[in-house]
C-alpha cells in the first residue's frame, strides 16, 4: 500500500513528523531499525542551553540566542517563528500525548547525573531542578545494587553545592535491579501508595524533598508520582540514571502510542537500503528483505552518525547510506584534538534548502524528500544542548513541507 508519507527512523524528529502528518489527515508509514537515542537521553526538552561561541555560557532565553547560531544551523534555516510554532505546538499537545512537561519560557537548571547544573527549557514535571532543592534538606533514595544510579556521586556533588543531602538505601524490590526492572516493578505494583508509606519512616524529619532515581514507572509514571507525594507528604523528584533512560523511553512510548492510535503503520526492525531516484523524485524505499515501500513523500529522520543515518569510513569520509545524499563536510574527520573530532562528527550532515529538501552541488536533489534531526548538518547537540528542540522543530517543519508539497 502506498502511503502519503514514509518516515525513515523512529527518533524524536521522525515521531513528531508522523504526528503532524497524521493530524493533517495524511497516511503515514514509519520504518526504523528500532533503536532510538531517546533511550539514552535525560529528562526534559533541551531547546538551546549554551551560547554558541562563548565557551558555553548558559542561555537564559533560547529564542533570543538563535540569531547567534551559525547561518546554516537548522534553527536559522527555519527561522525563529517556525521554531517557536513547532515547540509551542508540541507543548500544547502534551495532554493528548500523555507527556508531563512544565516550562516557564526560560531555561531552568536541572540536576545532571554527576550533580551538575545543566540548562533545560521544559522539564519533566518531576525532574529535579536546583531551584527546588536549594536551601532544603533532600532525602535521596537509592536501591541496593542499582549500579546505573551512582548515588555516591550525586550526594557528594549536592553537598558540595551546600544542599543538605541524605542517602537512604532501599531494599532491592525486584531482584538484580536495573532501571527497566525497577520501572516495571512500579508499573505492575497494585498499591504503590502502600509501598511509599512503608518507606516513609525512613525520611529524616526535616526533609523538604525526596529524590528517587528516574525509574518510577514507565507507563504509569504520573499516578506513581502522585502516590509517592501523597504517601510521603512532600515533593518527590527524579534524578537521571545511566542509560537506559526511563524518562526518554516514556517520551518515546507516549508518541509512538499516539501515532499508532492515529493510524500510523509501524515497521520496526526494518533497515532501509535502496532508494532508486527518478527525475528528482523518490517513489519508493526498499528494506534489506526486499520489501518495497511506496510513498508520495519521504522524511529522513535517521539519526545522523549516532544512530547510523550517516556512516563514516576509515578515511574519515561520511556518506548517507540510503539515498546517497550529498554530505556537507569541510574535509576528512581527522582533526588533531578530541574536541575537534567530536565537533566534526556532530556537525556533519545533509545540506538542505529552507524547506529541508536535500541539495546536491547547491541544486535541489529531491523535491519530495525532507531531512530532519541529527541527519541535518551544522548543529552540535551536546555543545548547544538543543537536541529535542531541533528534533521537534525540524520534524514539525518537514511534515508541514510534505503536506504543502502534496497539496500542490
Amino acid at each position, binding site marked *: 500500500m502506498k502511503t502519503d508519507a514514509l518516515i525513515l527512523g523512529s527518533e524524536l524528529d521522525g515521531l513528531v513528523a508522523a504526528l503532524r502528518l497524521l493530524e493533517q489527515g495524511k497516511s503515514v508509514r514509519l520504518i526504523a531499525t528500532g533503536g532510538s537515542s531517546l533511550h539514552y537521553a535525560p529528562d526534559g526538552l533541551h531547546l538551546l542551553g549554551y551560547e554558541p561561541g562563548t565557551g558555553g555560557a548558559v542561555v537564559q532565553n533560547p529564542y533570543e540566542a538563535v540569531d547567534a547560531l551559525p547561518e546554516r544551523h537548522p534553527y536559522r534555516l527555519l527561522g525563529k517563528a517556525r521554531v517557536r510554532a513547532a515547540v509551542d505546538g508540541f507543548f500544547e499537545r502534551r495532554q493528548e500525548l500523555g507527556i508531563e512537561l512544565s516550562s516557564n519560557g526560560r531555561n531552568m537548571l536541572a540536576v*545532571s547525573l554527576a550533580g551538575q547544573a545543566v540548562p533545560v527549557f521544559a522539564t519533566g514535571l518531576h525532574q529535579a531542578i536546583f531551584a527546588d532543592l536549594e536551601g532544603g534538606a533532600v532525602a535521596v533514595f537509592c536501591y541496593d545494587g542499582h549500579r546505573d544510579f551512582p*548515588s555516591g556521586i550525586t550526594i557528594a556533588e549536592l553537598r558540595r553545592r551546600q544542599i543538605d543531602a541524605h542517602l537512604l538505601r532501599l531494599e532491592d524490590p525486584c531482584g538484580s535491579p536495573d532501571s527497566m526492572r525497577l520501572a516495571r516493578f512500579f508499573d505492575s505494583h497494585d498499591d504503590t501508595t502502600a509501598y511509599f508509606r512503608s518507606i516513609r519512616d525512613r525520611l529524616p524529619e526535616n526533609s523538604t524533598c525526596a529524590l528517587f532515581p528516574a525509574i518510577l514507572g514507565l507507563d504509569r509514571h504520573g499516578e506513581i508520582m502522585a502516590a509517592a507525594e501523597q504517601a510521603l507528604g512532600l515533593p518527590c523528584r527524579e534524578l537521571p540514571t545511566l542509560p537506559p533512560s526511563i524518562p526518554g523511553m516514556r517520551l518515546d512510548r507516549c508518541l509512538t502510542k499516539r501515532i499508532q492510535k492515529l493510524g500510523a503503520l509501524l515497521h520496526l526492525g526494518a533497515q532501509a537500503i535502496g532508494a532508486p531516484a527518478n527525475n528528482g523524485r523518490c517513489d519508493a524505499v526498499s528494506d534489506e528483505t526486499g520489501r518495497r515501500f511506496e510513498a508520495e513523500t519521504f522524511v529522513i529522520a535517521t539519526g545522523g552518525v549516532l544512530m547510523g543515518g550517516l556512516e563514516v569510513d576509515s*578515511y574519515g569520509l561520511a556518506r548517507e547510506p540510503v539515498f546517497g545524499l550529498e554530505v556537507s563536510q569541510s574535509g576528512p*574527520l*581527522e582533526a588533531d584534538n578530541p574536541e575537534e573530532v567530536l565537533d566534526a562528527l556532530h556537525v556533519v550532515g545533509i545540506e538542505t534548502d529552507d524547506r529541508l529538501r536535500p541539495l546536491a552541488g547547491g541544486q535541489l536533489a529531491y523535491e519530495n524528500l525532507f531531512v530532519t534531526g541529527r541527519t541535518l548538518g551544522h548543529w552540535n547537540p551536546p555543545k548547544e544542548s538543543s537536541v529535542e528542540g531541533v528534533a521537534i522543530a525540524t520534524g514539525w517543519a518537514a511534515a508541514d513541507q510534505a503536506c504543502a508539497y502534496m497539496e500542490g
Partner: protein
Amino acid sequence: MSSQGPSKGAPRRVSAPRVAVIGGGATGCAVARDLLLRGFRVTLIEFGDLGSGTSSRFHGMLQSGGRYAVSDTDYAAECMRERQIVAGLVPHVVEPTGGLFVSLQEDPPAFADEFRASCEAAEIPVEELDPETVRRDEPHLSPTIRRAFAVPDATINPWGLVTALCDDARALGGEILTRHQVTGFELAGGRIRAVRVAGGGSERTLEADCVVNAAGPWAARVAFLADQTVDLELTKGSILVFAHRFVSKAINRCRPSTSHDIMVPTGTVSLFGTTSEVVDDPDTTRVNPEEIQSLLEGGEAMIPGLRSYRAFRAWAGVRPLLKPADWSQGKPLPRRHKVINHAPLGLSGFFTVCGGSLTTHRAMAEDLGNQVCHHFRAIAPCRTATTPLASHRNTSHWRPAESFESIEAENRRDSGICECESVSQSDLDALISEGGYGLHDLRRRLRIGFGPCQGTFCAGRVAGLLAEADPGFPAEEALARFWSERLKGMTRTAWGDQARQVLLSDLVFREVMGLRLRPEILPSEDRR
C-alpha cells in the same frame, strides 16, 4: 661473600647497602626484586602508577626472539631463554598463544629459509606449517601465504607482571613508592649520597649508597639530574586496537623487520602495529592521522578488509634504545640492553640500565645486579630465575575468558560493573577497600574502561562506588578527566561503529552526566 657485602637471604642486615631504584616499569621492578634477593636494602621510586610507562604502552608480546633471529641472532637467543623463564615465574599473566611468521606473495622468498636457519641457530623451536593448514586455522589472514613458521611467541599482561614483581619485592622487605618523582640527587666527592623525591605533597631526601636509573625513555632526563649523559634514541611506536581477536596466534610478516607488520591477540582484543618515528620527548604519546592510515595500509596486506573491522582506540609508546658512541646513522640500533656504570664517567654508585625489551627485563636486572655486586665487592649470585615469586600460584596460564569462567564457577551473581571486560562488583570492592586507587589505577588492574565502550557505561558506576567509599573523592573532576583521556585514543579511530560509540560516549558524559571536556589533559594524565 665479602665483609662489606650483604648476606644471602633474609633477614637483611641494617648494614647492607641502600639502593634507590628509579622507575616502576618491568625493568625497575625486576631490578628491585633481583637486588633484594641478593640482600640489598631497596626503595623503588615510580613517578606514576606501576607499569604506567613504556611497559604498558607496548605490543603485548613475550617474544620468542623470532623477530630478531636474522638481524641479531644472539639477542634472539636471549629472548627465547627469557621467554621460558618468565613464563615459568608468572604463568598467570602469560598466555602462550604461539606465534606465526608468514611469508606473503610480496615478501622476499629467500628470507624464509634464512629465517628458519637463524631460529635454529638461536635455539628457537621453529616448525614450518603447510599454508593450507594456516589458511584453515587463521581464516582472516591473506590467502596469499606462501610459507609459514610457528614459533613459541606468547603474550603477557604487563600490569599483572609488575604487580607480581612488586608484591614479591615487598614480601622481601623492599619499599615501593608509587606517585613519587625523583627530582634530584645529592652528590659528594664523586659519589651518590641521597635522592631527592617529591610525592604526596612534600619533598624529602632518601639516603642511598647506590642509584639504579631504570627510567626507560626518561633515563636520559634522570641521568641529567646527576649531571650525567645517557645517549638514547627515542622511537615512538603507534598501535591500533581492534575489538576482535581475528587471529589466534601472534602474526608477524616473515620479512626483514619493518613497521606495521605484527598483529597480536591479547585479552579480548588485537593490537596491530607499529609505526616507528624518532622523537625528542619521552612523554610523546600522540598518534598522527598519517600513522593511522599507514597502519591500516600495512594491516590490509596481512588481513584483507581490516579497514572494515572495528578499531576502538590508538595509542603510542616510546622505545628507549641506547645509541652506542660509534654508531653510524641509519643503521638499526642494537636491541640488546646495556648497563652503564657511571663511575668511570665521574659518578660512583650510579648505574643506568636501558634498551632491551620487556621480554628480557629479568636478564637486564640480572646483569645490573651483577655489576652492583661488583661495585660493592659483594658476592651474591642472581637468584631471580629459580626463586618462585611470593604470589606464585600454581595455576595454568592466563586465558582471555578467565573472568567469565570464574564468575560461573564461583556462582557470583553480584552485579556486573563492566560488561566489556566482565568485571563484577566484588572484584571492585576488594580493590576499593584497599584505598588510594583512582579510575585509571582500577582500569589497569581490572581492565575497566579497556573494552570497546572505553568506560562509557562503567566509569560512572565505578566513580559512584569510589565516592561512596570515600566522600572526599572528587567524582566530577575524576570522571571528566578520565573521559577526556579515553577520548584521546578513541577519537583516533572514529569510523564505522566506533564513530557511533564515540558519540554515544559523548552523550552519556556531556548530556547525561553534565560534564565538560577537559582539553588541557596532559600525556601523563592516566599515570598519576
